[in-house]
């Protein structure tokens, strides 16, 4: 049985992710504080952006790996297998985009491909995966009808993304703007899916599987509200500060997205790890068939 002290094995992966995220955020805040004070004094030009981006890529790699492990738990044709496959593809695409984005040359085609992969492509795959999961949740009785409060929360996010959409659409159409437009539209879709996921998971309770789907919803809310907050403060604070603060949106979001499949993997490991019976003992006895055999 899992105990509070048990930090070994994949069962404890969610705890590790939470611990590492907490420690890294604290360290990041400290470094940010030092950097804010030291940079003007020492005339530093560099920003801690590279290491920040790598930490997000690292979390995305963890997410892709956990998604792969979760996917392998399901046999072909299983209802959730398609959902996990799409979510795994989404994480893998995000990872590839993140790695390509670290290559030098901001205006290079590779950089645009990276933006496309880690933006609209990844979000579209995630939206498709979460939609498949919502269908399964509904089939098993966890379907929900959001109340006014839920619609209001999702509405705020949708309103924000549509505002951004309008802003971007009014500008000259460039590759970067087109990517941003697609991204904003997909964020709208994801926000609504997140609302349904949040409520469905709430209907389940507080078990490991519920935590898994709730984490996806939280990840989307962190991105949505984080971007809204950054956009709101963008008019009042210098651009370098806003750029530095982006990490405090993207890193927790990446961590929460890694946490979701980690919960699913932990649940599977918990189930399979505790079994001591052979598979032949596990079937519910079917007595008439046994009678026939006699």
């Amino acid at each position, binding site marked *: 049985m899992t105990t509070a002290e048990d930090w070994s094995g994949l069962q404890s992966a969610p705890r590790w992710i939470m611990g590492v995220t907490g420690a890294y955020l604290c360290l990041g805040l400290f470094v940010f504080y030092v950097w804010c004070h030291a940079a003007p004094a020492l005339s530093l030009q560099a920003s801690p952006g590279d290491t920040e981006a790598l930490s997000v890529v690292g979390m995305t790699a963890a997410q892709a790996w956990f998604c792969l492990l979760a996917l392998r738990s399901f046999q072909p044709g*299983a209802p959730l297998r398609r959902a996990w496959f799409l979510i795994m593809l989404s994480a893998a695409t995000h990872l590839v985009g993140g790695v390509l984005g670290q290559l030098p040359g901001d205006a290079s085609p590779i950089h645009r491909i990276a933006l496309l992969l880690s933006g609209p492509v990844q979000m579209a795959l995630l939206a498709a995966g979460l939609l498949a999961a919502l269908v399964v949740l509904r089939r098993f009785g966890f379907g929900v009808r959001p109340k006014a409060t839920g619609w209001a929360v999702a509405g705020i996010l949708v309103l924000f993304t549509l505002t951004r959409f309008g802003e971007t659409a009014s500008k000259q159409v460039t590759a970067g703007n087109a990517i941003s437009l697609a991204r904003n539209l997909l964020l709208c879709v994801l926000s609504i899916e997140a609302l349904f996921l949040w409520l469905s998971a709430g209907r389940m309770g507080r078990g490991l599987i519920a935590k898994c789907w709730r984490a996806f919803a939280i990840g989307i809310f962190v991105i949505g509200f984080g971007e809204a907050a950054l956009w709101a403060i963008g008019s009042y604070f210098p651009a370098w500060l806003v750029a530095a603060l982006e990490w405090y949106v993207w890193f927790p979001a990446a961590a929460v997205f890694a946490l979701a499949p980690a919960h699913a993997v932990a649940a599977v490991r918990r189930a*399979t790890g505790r079994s*001591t019976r052979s598979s032949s003992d596990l079937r*519910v*006895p079917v007595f008439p068939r046994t*009678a*026939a055999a006699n």
Partner: protein
Amino acid sequence: MHPRTATLVAFSDAELDTGRSQRIARHLQDCPECQAALDRISKEKQDLSALAGGAGPVVDARRGLAAVLATMARWREGPAPEMKSRARAQVEIYFGCGAASFMESPDIRADELLGKTLALMTAFLGQEAAEAVAGEILRGLDCAALTAEVLP
């Protein structure tokens, strides 16, 4: 309503699923007409088997019926409450209290609850994990011994 002859043949051949077998068994308890039909089927099968030189197993439908009834009695009073409580506990661990209360209607049978639990586990955790959870639920209930006990 009486089951059709084909259904009784399938019942005597143990080709029906557990739920259907139990429904037929309940009906047979109160219906001498169907019991007689089942006896006839059993006898005809024995005759056919004798004609074929004794090849193949001879199914005693009466024994099958007795086994199903005994099993039903066991579900009602023996390991059933324990199994229900374990299934609920497992659903609470992996899904939560909401899911456990949602899936359990007050008069649900233990085997139905187990079936629902396993369907849920298979869908959300995969086949292997669901089997492991089934092992956890059935551990100590010794269903294999129970089978042997009701089928001398």
